[in-house]
């Protein structure tokens, strides 16, 4: 199997292809993403040691934001329609972390982003 090319997408482009809402509001920062970490297990995310990767997860509690913050990730896409609490969204704003949310499932999100050349990091 051929590995996908290492290309990048902006957060805005990812928002569009995954049909995401932007939970943290405002304009999306001009961040280029090349790597994806996709898991509901936060230790799996932490073990990736891949700064500036984008996290795809169905875990919507505050630990998802704390994990993305300490692992220096580019942001989080919540999948399959889950939504974090207002308190968690506010915490993400304080940490300047972008939160997106889509109704698509994890498998579809990963497939769409992989088709566009992004890489998995777990």
């Amino acid at each position, binding site marked *: 199997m051929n590995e996908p090319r290492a290309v990048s997408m902006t957060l805005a482009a990812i928002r569009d292809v995954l049909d995401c809402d932007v939970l943290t509001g405002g304009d999306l920062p001009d961040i280029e993403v090349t790597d994806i970490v996709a898991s509901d297990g936060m230790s799996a995310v*932490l*073990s990736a040691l891949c700064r500036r990767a984008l996290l795809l*997860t169905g875990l919507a*509690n505050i630990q998802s934001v704390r994990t993305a913050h*300490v*692992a*220096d990730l580019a942001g989080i896409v919540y999948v399959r329609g889950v939504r974090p609490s207002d308190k968690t969204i506010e915490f993400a704003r304080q940490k300047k972390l972008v939160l997106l949310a889509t109704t698509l499932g994890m498998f579809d999100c990963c497939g769409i982003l992989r088709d566009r050349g992004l890489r998995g990091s777990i």
Partner: protein
Amino acid sequence: MAADVLLRKTFEVHGLDFDKAGDTSAEIKAILTDIGMDPDIIMRAGVVTFEAEMNVVMYAVRATVTFTLTEEALSIEVVDEGPGIPDLALAMQEGYSTASDEMREMGFGYGMGLPNIRKTSDQFALESEVGRGTRVFAMIRMDANE
């Protein structure tokens, strides 16, 4: 001769305090960011501290987390009062866990915490006494990314 200590700070972490789990790692990250530390080292220090904090919150009664910075290295020592670990080799095995469903709902407790700390640090030590507590030591060298 031991290297001069540039900074040392001790934090307290309490068992079952899931709301604050991660505060210590966030504070250490902020300190290292303020002094202009290499981002990869900041990330590794954050990962080590966060995993250690989650272990304390999930399993121990309380702990002290001592962060020490010298010109050569950064170290994190976590000493907890708790049940201890009966089998250290088993605890270091990826995927082995005694976590409850509640812990897994937090996104942790999949048996990766201690292995993650070892993997993320340049030096790692684990000691435990059943019925008393556990000590985790992790050191990250400043020249590790050069």
